[in-house]
């Protein structure tokens, strides 16, 4: 634990030294004045690509300033600063100089918006879990991923396949019956997604008596049974 604190203090001192030397050198890009901003925006409109570099560089301080608002969010400062830079690049590339607002005002909104969008996306991601998420190791030290402990019921799959095969087999055998026998069985047992009907309903539909439907049904089942027995 003392090692951690030593590292933390050393890191902070290193940051302060960098900061002090930076401020001493006065090399931190200063924000543009309104006149300078306008000048470089006009140069950019004329096609001067260097003006874009300056507009971005001289607004980097703005990114650091906006990041302050998100202190305590738990996000890494370096990440936020990069995200803010993306917002700044977007701002410079999409700014419309014909409008009355300043680039700095527009860029502030873009930088803040980029960070907020990132935070929302991260919050949403927290509710999700990757299938490749490592959840531990097995006895041999191999990494176990979330997807390794998930499975479908093997029996359910095999039953489903078997049922499909049975249906196909039945349909092949039904084709060997007379059209009338096939029709009666299809309607009676609701095959192929049809609605199941009573013998009386089938009789009415086919214009024959209920007892005749009953005889056709019995004969058709007998013939089907014979086919299955012959195959077995």
């Amino acid at each position, binding site marked *: 634990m003392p090692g951690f604190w030593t590292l933390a203090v050393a*890191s*902070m001192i290193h*940051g*302060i030294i*960098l*900061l002090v030397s*930076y*401020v001493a050198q006065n*090399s*931190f*890009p200063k924000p543009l004045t309104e006149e300078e901003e306008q000048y470089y925006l006009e140069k950019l409109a004329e096609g001067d*690509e*260097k003006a*874009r*570099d300056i507009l*971005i*560089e001289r607004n*980097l301080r703005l990114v*650091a*300033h906006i*990041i*302050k608002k998100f*202190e305590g969010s738990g996000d890494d*400062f*370096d*990440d*936020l*600063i*990069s*995200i803010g*830079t*993306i917002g700044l*690049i*977007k701002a410079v*590339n*999409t700014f419309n100089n014909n409008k009355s607002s300043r680039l700095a005002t527009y860029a502030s909104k873009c930088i803040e918006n*980029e960070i907020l*969008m*990132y935070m*929302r*996306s991260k919050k949403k991601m927290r509710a999700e879990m990757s299938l490749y998420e490592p959840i531990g190791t097995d006895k041999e030290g191999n990494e176990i991923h979330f997807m390794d402990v998930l499975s479908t019921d093997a029996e359910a799959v095999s039953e489903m396949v078997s049922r499909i095969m049975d249906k196909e087999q039945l349909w092949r055998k039904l084709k060997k019956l007379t059209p009338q026998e096939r029709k009666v069985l299809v309607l009676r047992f609701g095959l192929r997604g049809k609605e199941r009907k009573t013998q009386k309903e089938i009789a009415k539909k086919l214009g024959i008596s209920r007892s005749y439907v009953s005889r056709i049904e019995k004969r058709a089942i007998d013939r089907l049974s014979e086919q299955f027995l012959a195959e077995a």
Partner: protein
Amino acid sequence: MVTGSTCIICETARAGENGLVVCGNYICPLCEEKITKVSVSDPAYECYTSGLKKIWRCTGNCLPSGDSIFLASLARR
């Protein structure tokens, strides 16, 4: 000063091409365009953020690290 014409995002050398130069760090036109359009939900978003960290982390003519800038902003309060 440009540290080189190798893009800090895609790490591809694109000599003679336009693009951005931020504090001596080159961003090629392709990456610049992608940055302008990238959404936070894009799986490549992290590539852009880690690439852009180089602007803030490098020494010499570049800016101090993000931590230092944060300290600077705290110091100005």
